[in-house]
């Protein structure tokens, strides 16, 4: 049953957006976030929203998949909204009773900040939905390579990500096996209060950790025996190549940022 899990939230279809170079996508996502933070009017957010919606169409990713990315963050969004609403100082009072004081400024600020947060999540979700974790770790490695000069472990970081991805299914399978073995002996993982359930996890986690450490030792030895000696002088099977589509995507992002800057000046 665990064989077919999808890693991360990658949505594997073939689309223009999926085929973009992961490095470009990563950079453009950062540019998009910057653009979102430059927006100052509701009209600007409408443009951003239209843009995200259009991208999800191009990527053949259902828009509700994108919205699903917001779900785990809904409390943070609501909290941001409320904090800004109640604690931003302002002049033009809209509502005032007891200790609560809502002003026009605070309402605007609350809307701004929560919208920014929402678009930030939508933008990064679009990246992770359309880029496989492996390509993403490739992109991160290459983009961080200049930092190797200041001893930043770019290669090691990417290698760690790859190995983690490789072992997620293996460890899930193992968890499944241990869980069934413990259940056969009467363990109960589902009922009881939080404390009891957490305690039931201990006999699951201990063997899992022991085996993970043993696997790590084995893997390190296997990697060494296949001549692994860090990123020095290493070549790669997957080479990334920037294509015309990537340049076009960059151009569109420049347009979007231009539009938002213009909107900031005009309005």
């Amino acid at each position: 049953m665990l064989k077919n899990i999808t890693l991360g939230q990658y949505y594997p279809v073939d689309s223009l957006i999926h085929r973009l170079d992961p490095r470009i996508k990563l950079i453009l996502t950062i540019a998009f976030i910057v653009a979102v933070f430059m927006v100052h009017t509701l009209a600007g957010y409408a443009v951003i929203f239209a843009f995200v919606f259009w991208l999800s169409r191009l990527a053949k990713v259902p828009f509700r998949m994108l919205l699903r990315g917001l779900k785990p963050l809904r409390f943070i969004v609501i909290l941001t909204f409320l904090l800004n609403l109640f604690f931003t100082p302002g002049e033009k009072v809209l509502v005032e009773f007891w200790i609560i004081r809502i002003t026009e400024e605070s309402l605007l600020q609350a809307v701004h900040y929560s919208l920014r947060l929402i678009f930030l999540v939508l933008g990064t979700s679009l990246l992770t939905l359309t880029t496989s974790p492996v390509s993403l770790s490739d992109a991160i490695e290459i983009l961080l390579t200049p930092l190797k000069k200041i001893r930043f472990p770019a290669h090691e970081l990417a290698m760690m990500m790859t190995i983690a991805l490789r072992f997620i299914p293996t460890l899930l399978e193992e968890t499944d096996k241990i869980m069934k073995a413990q259940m056969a002996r009467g363990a109960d993982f589902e009922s009881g209060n939080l404390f009891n359930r957490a305690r039931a996890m201990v006999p699951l986690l201990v063997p899992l950790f022991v085996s993970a450490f043993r696997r790590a030792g084995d893997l390190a030895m296997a990697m060494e025996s296949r001549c692994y000696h860090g990123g020095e002088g290493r070549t790669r099977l997957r080479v990334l190549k920037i294509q015309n589509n990537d340049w076009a995507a960059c151009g569109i992002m420049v347009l979007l940022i231009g539009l938002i800057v213009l909107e900031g000046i005009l309005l």
Partner: protein
Amino acid sequence: MTETPRISLDGVSYTYEEAPSPALSQATAAIREGEFVAVLGHNGSGKSTLAKLLNALYIPTEGTVLVCGYNTKEEKYTWEIRRRAGMIFQNPDNQIVATVVKEDVAFGLENLGVPTVDMIPRIESALATVRMSKFADTAPHMLSGGQKQRVAIAGILAMEPSVIIADEATAMLDPSGRQEVLDTLLALNKNKNITVVWITHFMEEAAKADRVIVVSDGSIVEDGTPGEVFEKTDRMRELHLDVPHMTALAEELRSEGMPLPGGILTVEDMVREVEKIICPSKSAT
């Protein structure tokens, strides 16, 4: 002609840190090009220690190990030695690094700094050799144990090795997986003249080797053809090892008075010898 052996061990001892006694002591042996050598020994006898010494994963505390003429003590040869003497481990899950089969086969090549254009044909031919071409783009966790071990073999083959060391590579597999992996290595040994060091607990597998080395408590105690070694049934029992079923059966029959010769290892051997006794006329033709 005196050819240099692929692997030569000369008075090799290895003691783990803080261990009271050596895990391997005074081992001396030479393995020639193209040999298929099975290594037998009970649990904890030092087989894995021996394997890791052949790949410069361990450096002998005493004596010398030469792999294709390179001394494992000299650090500058470490990568050359590991390229030439590839190693397959017991647990198929714990030796696959990448998330896609062909990328795992590429792992060794990437480490050696082989240019990308040269990698692709080497990966394809390695996968074809172990008959795994159609799984090139599959995720490793979707494969069976035997298939994973064949991917591991392909990963080593791509590096064009002279020796493959398999440390109980079939111990975690089902019978058909075991057969797959053993057959793959037997074929490589025969067709590509790759020297194989095959560590195993299965006597039937060892019977297919050219030569059997028995390790006991860190020492090499027997070294010869499977026929020679398994003939000493009592000696093997003393070393806590079995002999192949057919060898044991031949011994039983002999003690019952059947005039069977020595060196019977497989069912085929047995059939042939028994036929000779039962109908001598037929086997003469």
